[in-house]
C-alpha cells in the first residue's frame, strides 16, 4: 500500500546545498509495522514528515493507495491526511486551548463525522483516559498527553500511522504502555504503523526494520 521510490530531500542553507535524504526506497503492505532507526540527524523525522505529506520532497515518489502524494497540492495532501493518515509526535502537539476530548474530536469534526463526540469518548476510554476527558493538556502528565495524542491519531481511523519517537519524552514504564497501546490499536484496526525509535526492543516488535545514516538507508531487512 505504501511504495517509496528514489526519494530525495535537499535543502539550501547558507553553506550551500544540504542533502538530508538520499535515494530512499521502501515497500510496505497494509498492517505491517516498520521501525526506522539511526543516529541523531540521520533524517528519520524528515522521512516521516515526507511520508505523511507534512513536507515536500525534492524528488522521487510516494505512492499510497496508488496515489502519488508528491503530486498533490497542499490542500490535496491535507484532505489525504484527514482520510488516511495519523501522526504521533515526540512532543505530543496537543492544542493547549482544547480539552482532551476536544483534541480528539478535532480530526473527526474535520472529516464531518456526525457522532464525533461519541467516537472520541470511546477512543479516550480505550487509552484509559475517560476520567480526564475534560482536562486541558497542561493538567495532564506527559504520558497522559501522549495517550490523548494517540487517541487523536486513531480518531480518523487511519490506514497509516506515523509515530516519531512517541516515547522519547516518557519514562520506560509509561513508554511501554504507550507502545502496547500503539500495537494494540495497530492490530485491532489493521493499521500500517511506521515509527521512529532508538529502542532495539521496540524495533524488534516491528515486522520490518530500516536504518538510516546521513540520509541513506544502510540496512533494510524484511523478515517475518
Amino acid at each position: 500500500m505504501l511504495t517509496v521510490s528514489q526519494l530525495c530531500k535537499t535543502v539550501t542553507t547558507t553553506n550551500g546545498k544540504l542533502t538530508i535524504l538520499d535515494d530512499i526506497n521502501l515497500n510496505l503492505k497494509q498492517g505491517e509495522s516498520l521501525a526506522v532507526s539511526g543516529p541523531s540527524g540521520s533524517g528519520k523525522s524528515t522521512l516521516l514528515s515526507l511520508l505523511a505529506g507534512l513536507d515536500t520532497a525534492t524528488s522521487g515518489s510516494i505512492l499510497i493507495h496508488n496515489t502519488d502524494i508528491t503530486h498533490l497540492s497542499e490542500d490535496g495532501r491535507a484532505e489525504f491526511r484527514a482520510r488516511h493518515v495519523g501522526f504521533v509526535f515526540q512532543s505530543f502537539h496537543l492544542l493547549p486551548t482544547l480539552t482532551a476530548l476536544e483534541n480528539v474530536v478535532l480530526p473527526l469534526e474535520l472529516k464531518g463525522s456526525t457522532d464525533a463526540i461519541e467516537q472520541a469518548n470511546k477512543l479516550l476510554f480505550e487509552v484509559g483516559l475517560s476520567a480526564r476527558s475534560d482536562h486541558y493538556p497542561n493538567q495532564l502528565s506527559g504520558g497522559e498527553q501522549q495517550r490523548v495524542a494517540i487517541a487523536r491519531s486513531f480518531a480518523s481511523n487511519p490506514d497509516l500511522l506515523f509515530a516519531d519517537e512517541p516515547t522519547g519524552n516518557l519514562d520506560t514504564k509509561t513508554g511501554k504502555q504507550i507502545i502496547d497501546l500503539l500495537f494494540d490499536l495497530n492490530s485491532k484496526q489493521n493499521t500500517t504503523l511506521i515509527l521512529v525509535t532508538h529502542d532495539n526492543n521496540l524495533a524488534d516488535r516491528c515486522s520490518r526494520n530500516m536504518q538510516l545514516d546521513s540520509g541513506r538507508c544502510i540496512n533494510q531487512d524484511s523478515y517475518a
Partner: protein
Amino acid sequence: MPDFKIALRLFARDWRSGELRILMVSLLIAISGLTTIAVIVDRVDRGMSKETSQILGADRVIRSPRPILDATLKEISALGLNRSDSIRFRTMVIAGNEFQLASVRAVDLSYPLAGELRISDTPFVQGKPAKGAPTTGNVWVSPRLLQALNISINNQVEIGVQRFTISGIIETEPGNTDFISFAPSLIMALSDVPATKVIQPGSRVAYHYDFSGSEAALLQFDQWCKTALSASERVIGAEENSPTVQSALGRARNYLNLAGLLGLLLGSVAIAIVSNRYVRRHFDHAALLRCIGMKQNHILYIYSLVLLFAALIGTTLGIILGYFLQQTAITALADWLPEKIPSANSGAVGLGYIAGVLVVAGFSLPGLLRIRRVTPMRILRNDLVPLPVSAWISIFSAITALGLVMWRYTLDIKLVSVVLLGGILLTAVLSAFTRLLLRFLRKVSRSVAMPVRFGTGHLLRHREATLIQTAAFSIILTLMLTILLVRNELISDWQKQLPPETPNHFVINLPPADTQAFREFLLTHSITPGEIYPMVRGRIVEINDKSVAQVFGEHYGQQHNSLRRELNLTWSTTLPKSNQILQGGWQTSNKNGISIEQEMADSLNLQLNDTLTFNIGSLTTKGTITSIRKVEWDSFEPNFYVIFQPGKLESFGATYISSFYLPLEQKIILNGMLQKFSSISILETDRILQQVRNIIRQASIAVEFVLIFVIAAGLIVLLSTTYASLDEKEYEAGVLRTLGARNRTIFLCIISEYWLLAMLAGIMATFASESIAFGLYYFVFKIDPVLHGWLWWLSPIAAILLIVPAGVFGVRSIVSTQPVRILNKN
C-alpha cells in the same frame, strides 16, 4: 558588572533573532507618533500665534498712561525686540465749521510691526500697502471721519493749533481692534504731535509700545514683564486681543494635545501587548538561567536592562522618524498653514525619551515581575507557567506611567484626570459587559458549523485572553473614534460660530427715530438687517450699595474689564439669540431686573438678587440681578454685559446699535448709508473676521492632519496587536493541518474568531467613545454633548472590516508554509 554583559549579549541575540523587533516597531510607532504630533502642534501653534499678531499689529504691546522710563526701554532693547512707539489720544478734529471727536494714533516710522496697513484714495476702496507714518504735515483718516467732517482727500483739517493735509484714507490698520472707542480714527506722525499742543499735563493719553521679535526674545520679554512693569502698565498679547481667536486656538490646542495623548495611548496598547509577549516567550530562558544558579533579582535586573536597551533604541529611532514625518507634513501642508512656521523646538526629544522609557517600564513591569518568579522546575515541566502578578499592580504601574507621561506632555492635570479616570471607569464597565456577552455567546455557539464553533470556542475557553484582546482592540478603536468624533464636533462648531454671513459691520449712534428707515435702507440693498439694540453707556459704581473701591480695594479695575470702563447697557424684552440663561430666569415682570454675563458675575462674585448701581452721565440707576447669561463673545454680534428690562433706561437718551453682513463687493454702499444717516458711525470688522477665519481654517487643517495621522497609527497598532497573537494561531493552524484540515477550514476558524472579537470590540468601542466624547465636550471643550446614532452600527462594521483582514493577513503565511516547519518552531 557581569550582569550587564549578560544583558547586553541577551539583547544582541534577541535583536538578531527578531524577538525584540516587534517591540521596537511598537515603540517606533508610539514615539514617532507622539513626536510628530508634539512637534507639529507646537510649530503650528506658534505659527498661528504669529498670525494673530497681525491683528494686533505686534507680538506684544505695553500700554501705559505715562511714557515709560528710558532706562526701562533700554532693558527691553537688550532683549533684542523690535519696537514701535505710538501714542493714542482723543481730540477734536476740525474742518471749517464741522468738528468731530477722533481717536488719534501718532505712530513712528516702524509702524506696523505686524499685519498690513493699507491706505487708499477713495473711501471703502481697495488701497495700497503702506509702512510707517504719514509724512510731516499729512494725516491719514478713516472714511468715517471724512464723512463726519464732510470733506474728502487732500482737504485740510485742524488738530490743536496745527493744520494737516489728508493724504490718504485708511482701509485697514493693524492694532485697531478697540470696539469700545467708537470715535473714528486718524493716523499721524509721532513727530508732529508736539506742534499741535494738544497734549497738556492732565490730558488722557495712552502710550503704546509695540514689540515684535523671535520667540525666545518674546519669552524673555514675558518673563521680564512679570516683575518689571508698574501697576498702570499693561501688556497685551496677540491672543488676548481677540476672544474668537483665543477660544478657537484654545480648542484647537486642546484637540491637538488630546490627539497626541491618544496617539501615545495607542502606542502604549501595542507596547503593553508586545512587551508581555516578549516576557512570555522568555520563561524558558529565565528558567534556564535559574537552573544554572541565577538569583531571582538578577533575572529581574537582566531582563529590565534588555527592555531598557530596547526602549532607548526604539525611542531614538522613533524620535528621528517623528522629526522626519513632521517635517514632511509641514512641507506638504505649507500652502494651508501660517506663512511663517517657526522651526522645531528640541523639547520633543526629551518628551520622547521620557515617554518611551516610562511607557515600556510601566507596561512591562507586571511581566518582569512575573518572569522573576519563573521556577527552575520549568525546565522539566514546561507547563509550570509563573503566576501573573496581581491585576492591581499591573493597573497601577500602567496608569502611573501613562499619567506621568500625559502630565509631562500636556501639563494639564484636568485633561489627564478626565482621560485617566474615564479610562479606568470605562475599562471596568466594559470588561463586565464583555463577560456578559461571552456568556451569552456560549449559549448560542452550540449549534453552528465546526469552524465557527472552533473560533467561538477558542474565545470562550480563553476568557482572560479574550478579554485582553477585546480590550486592546476596543481601546484602539475607541481612540480612533474619539478623535474622529471630537474633530467633527470641533469643526462644525467652528463653522457654526462664524457662518458665512457672520455680521462684519457694526452701526452705532443710530438715532431712535431712524431705526425703521435704517432697516429699510438695508433691505433695499438686499442686505439682511440684524437685531437693533438700544445702547446707553454707563459705569458700575456700586455693588449691593457699597462702592466698588470698598468691595475690591484701590485696584478694583484689575478685578474685571467691566469695572475698568464704561459698559454698553441695553434693554430688551427678549433674550438675545446667541445668549443662554445659566442661572435665574428671564423675568419680564420685574422692571428693576437685570441680566448679567457669566464671566463678569464670576469675577465680581455676583449672585442672583445682588444689586448693581450704574453711573450714566451724571445720573445713577440701580438694577437687581435676576439672571446670569452665557454670551457668545465671538459671535460678532452686539453683545452686552448687562441687559435691563424695558422701562428703566429709556430716559437716558439711548442711541441704537446693530450689525449686518455686507459682502466685499457691496462695500461702496457704506458711502450712501453715511450720507443718509449722518449721525451714525460704521465699524468695519470684516478684516478681522477674515483673519480669524484664516486662523480657524489653519487650526482645522492641523486638526485634520493629526486625525489622519492618529487613524493611521491606530491601523498599524491594530496590525501589530494581531501580529502578537500570531504564534499561537500559527501553531494551531499547523496542528490542524497535520490533522488534515484544508486552508479554507483554517481560515474560517480564524475569520470567525476575529469576526467575533471585532464585533465585541466594535460594540465596546462605540460605547466607550460616546462616553469619552461626552466627557470631553462637557469638561474640556465646553461644547454641548450629543449622541451619534450612526456610530452604533458603523463602528462594529468598521471594526470587522479592519480587524478580520488584519487577522487573516497576519496568518496568511500559514497557507504557504509546510506544516512540519510550523511544528518544529515550537
